[in-house]
């Protein structure tokens, strides 16, 4: 896992296509905030009023095209129940991007989201791109988390932030695209992001010179 295969895909007629990058993305957040719905909307364009509760984690893939790059997301949609918390590191370890989701109609889910962000900042790869999604923005009438509050928090912590609605599809594609844009796409940079820091010196060390 945690691989980033950059390569040149071949079109049927043999002409080389743009570069393909593969990134691992993980969704985290309290249960029933709409993580699976966001993914379903993004991957299949569908929405179910009632989406069954994920057990463990679900896995889906989706490809988006940027100007010169095709970004393939390997999406790990984790279960939000506390009992599954201990499994989360397995999913965010080596992930290049994370979407932390909360429900704008519930203040507690926002607090939980902050904890996830904290954990990611401490435990995940330092170069991970984190996005904060305030989901269920279609239920703005029942809003409990102010947009400004979340925006301020996101700014403070260097997170991408959008309020989304899996139901109306608002900002769903946008947040994934924003992440795709922020991810390093060059072969070396993507590789480094796969699990941690970047290599400061670009030269391959000549191990042979150590053995003389």
């Amino acid at each position, binding site marked *: 896992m945690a691989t980033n295969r950059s390569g040149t895909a071949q079109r049927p007629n043999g002409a080389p296509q743009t570069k393909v990058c593969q990134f691992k993305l993980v969704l985290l957040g309290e249960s029933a905030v709409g993580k699976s719905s966001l993914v379903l909307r993004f991957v299949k364009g569908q929405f179910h009023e009632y989406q069954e509760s994920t057990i*463990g984690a679900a896995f889906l893939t989706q490809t988006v095209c940027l100007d010169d790059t095709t970004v393939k997301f390997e999406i790990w949609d984790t279960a939000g129940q506390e009992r599954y918390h201990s499994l989360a590191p397995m999913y965010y370890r080596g992930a290049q991007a994370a979407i932390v989701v909360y429900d704008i109609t519930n203040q507690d889910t926002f607090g939980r989201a902050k904890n996830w962000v904290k954990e990611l900042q401490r435990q995940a790869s330092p170069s991970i791109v984190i996005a904060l999604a305030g989901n269920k923005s279609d239920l703005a009438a029942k809003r409990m988390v102010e947009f400004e509050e979340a925006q301020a928090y996101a700014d403070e912590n260097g997170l991408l932030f959008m309020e989304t609605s899996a139901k109306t599809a608002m900002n769903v594609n946008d947040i994934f695209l924003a992440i795709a844009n922020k991810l390093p796409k060059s072969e070396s940079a993507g590789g480094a992001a796969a699990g941690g820091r970047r290599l400061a010196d670009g030269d391959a060390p000549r191990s042979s010179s150590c053995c003389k």
Partner: protein
Amino acid sequence: MNEEIDEYDIYHQDFTTVSEWEVFIARLEEILNDWKLTKTKLLRFSEYTKKWISKSEDIVFQGIRFKISYNMLEPIDKKDNNDTTDDKFIFQEIQTGLWNSASKFMDDLDGSPYPVSNWFGLKRYLMLCSDIPLVEGSIIKLVMSSINIAFANVNCGVPVFAKIREHWQHNYQGLYEDHEYKVSFDTIHLKRISNQCSHLSGLVSLFKSKIASPVALDAVIVSAKFSYELKDSDSFAWRKLTRSNEFLSIDGFDVKKLIQLPFGSEKNPVASVLLNAIWPKFRESTIVDSSTFSDIDPIMAPIWMVSLQLRDQINCQLSDTVSKVMELLDNNFLLMDTLGLSRSLGLVNPLHKITEAPITISKLVKAAMGQSTNVSEFKGPIPDDLLMPLLYYVFPDAVDDNTFNYPDQLEIEYKGDGSDNKLCNYVKTSPQGGLVWRLSVTAARLYDAGGLQYLAHLWYEFTQELQYRWEHRILVPGVAEGAPNARTCLLHQKLQLLNCCIARAAEGSSIFAGNSSEDEFYDCSESESTEEQPPWDRPVGRLHRLEDASLKNGAPLYVPRTQDPAPKTEDQLEEDAELMVRLGDDAKASELRARMMSASLLSDMEAFKAANPGAELCDFVQWYSPRDWMPEDGGALGARMLLPGNPWMETWSVARPVPAVRQRRLFDETREAQQVLHFLRSRTVSAVAELLLPAILRAGAAKAIEEGASGGSVSVGGIDKRRTFEVAAREIYDAEREACRSLCVRTVFGEGREGEPLDVAGRARILAAAGGALPPPTRREFTLRVRDELAPQLMRAALATDLTIIGAFTERTSTIFVRSEPVTSCDPCYQRARIVVVVGASEIILRVVFMADCGRWCDRCGRAGQALCCDVSVSAARIGVGECVECACARPRSPGAPRNRSVARWYARSIPGRARFSSKPDNK
């Protein structure tokens, strides 16, 4: 004025046919203009960093590729710097630089791409450099003329140089001029030192003759540097280090020696010591150095500087040890093959897997437990009296001796613990001084000493010991407690997992003494078990009450004891994740994945049912997924839990009330332990090296830091393991080399610092090491300076086996009229015009002078009715402009006169054959 000039004719028509030379000059001018190097446009800076910045452009001329580059010291930019320079400021800066250039020596490096900045103390310069050497006189002249013209036309504010002759000769010719002064920069390179130039007095007279001052000069100020190469560097004290494999001599065998990683160079790393005797400044008369007599004595030189040249290949013992293990990464044979044990251990090289029967656990167990005859009779290459102390060092709890006990608290040092800049801290760690650490260092040392056989033997004994410990339920010492910690290296994780298995097995066997580890059930002492025998529906496996929550039927809700998730090492987690990825993302795969995932859900549901008899799914959800539980609806399930066929309902429907203690275990310690043991035994050589390297590298880094190496700045991670190892090994090598160097520096410099003049003791030490007298100098350098009435005049000479003399001479750009004759031409423009020969300080100019009534206007002041002149320089093929005599005399050669349309027009009409212009006219 009275004729109509067809501008199209002049500016547009003929560009494709202008001569290549004109195009070349035009291109040069265009570049200089683009770079805004006109005297009036240059920004004025007063402070600079030490970094050189450059920009360059390519030009092709006569099939030669030229690169013109602009090199300047990076200025410390004051934000609102809009001051531009003027002639005076630039010339002042050049003068100061020339005078102060003597504080550096010609062989110093200032970081700029060409030595001229260091030679002449320049802060900025232009350099025209060709790809093939310019050897022929005619092409050199042509190039010099071109830069002369371009310099003048642009009114350039930066000295411009051309690199001529063979490139290795570092021959640069350059100029700078404004309307008052001209500075010529020259280089002479001779392969042999001529007699006259071989001593100071000869150089001084050469210098004076070059200045040719009409008035008496001040005394010439001399700076000198004599360099001596002290080859016999062994005389400089060198700490002998113990040979790394000393511990192998059996009678002197000492574990303590073995576990010390070797460090530093075995031999003296100093290749040579370069001594520079420096006289910063003396008057020419104070020291005599002629062909017949010299009183230059290096012992008397005010300053001695020493620099060390290290051997290119220092043999660094630590890096040697590390790189030997690194080489193993290419060896894909089974390590046990080395001892011929693979078959008897039931191991198969993964490369041969396809042809051989698959390994089964039972086969393995048989092989390992049964100790098939081959194995038990096995006698490894390491003699027992060497092997046993090593094993006791790695497993110190096996003997009563407390010498090598592991510390009680094994600390795992994390990346982020404030020790951010430590060497190799990106390599996964294991507790410092713990078992993995000891084993890895021992392995590296043994491998270094005895080759692969020794390594294999040690590894074999190590795995046998682990097998023994598993069978006898003895924990592996020197390993951090708890489940595998993904921040530690894989070998450490494996041992942590093995310890988990041993602990679990020991727990089980202590309760059911005599039960085999195959037992599917275990029990633990619960408070309830002390009470009377539970009936079937009696609640079991309760952990605690969930606050004051209650079941739908009104009974209090209890949180059950649940099974802990199975401890896993990172490679297992990766495998799991990969498996799930491989399933794909279609509906069927999702369902399969959900079923795989629901094993622990089922376990939790069964435990819940056992702890809460009569509970419903909504009660379970109240504890497990509170957001799907609707208290306001009387504790109903949330809508999504009611979806028909959803896995929560399905799992609930098949869950039986079974407390965690009686469930089928999610973690099977026997299987896991056997897998760990098999994993370790069946590694290839490269895989074993991969397991050992993290600790070897970290131990090496720790050793280097202990020896005074400073932290590395490399940060790395996420890339493949091998590359991480390579980066780390490289870092250790650099650190070790640097440590060797600083050790040498300490022995040579004592208290002093490199790059500073030696103190008296240091001088005495060097002189003694050189045997009391210095050898003949390998290189001598003199800088001669004098200020005449104009500016500083400078000449520098470096005398080694060859001779380089450079000079910067400033002269006034004054003109002397020599003779004047009428122009013979039928062109009416030339009637009454005169041609005047003007001899400048450095060139001869033919000046066509038009009389006042010629009907032209002065280009400079714009007045008509003035006598006008137009210059053609003979020596530099430079073309002046049309301006009135008054203007022309005010600026005798006005090199930077702006070229505008009127000039072009003037020229176009006044001098036949000069009608074409090579560059677009300035739009000023």
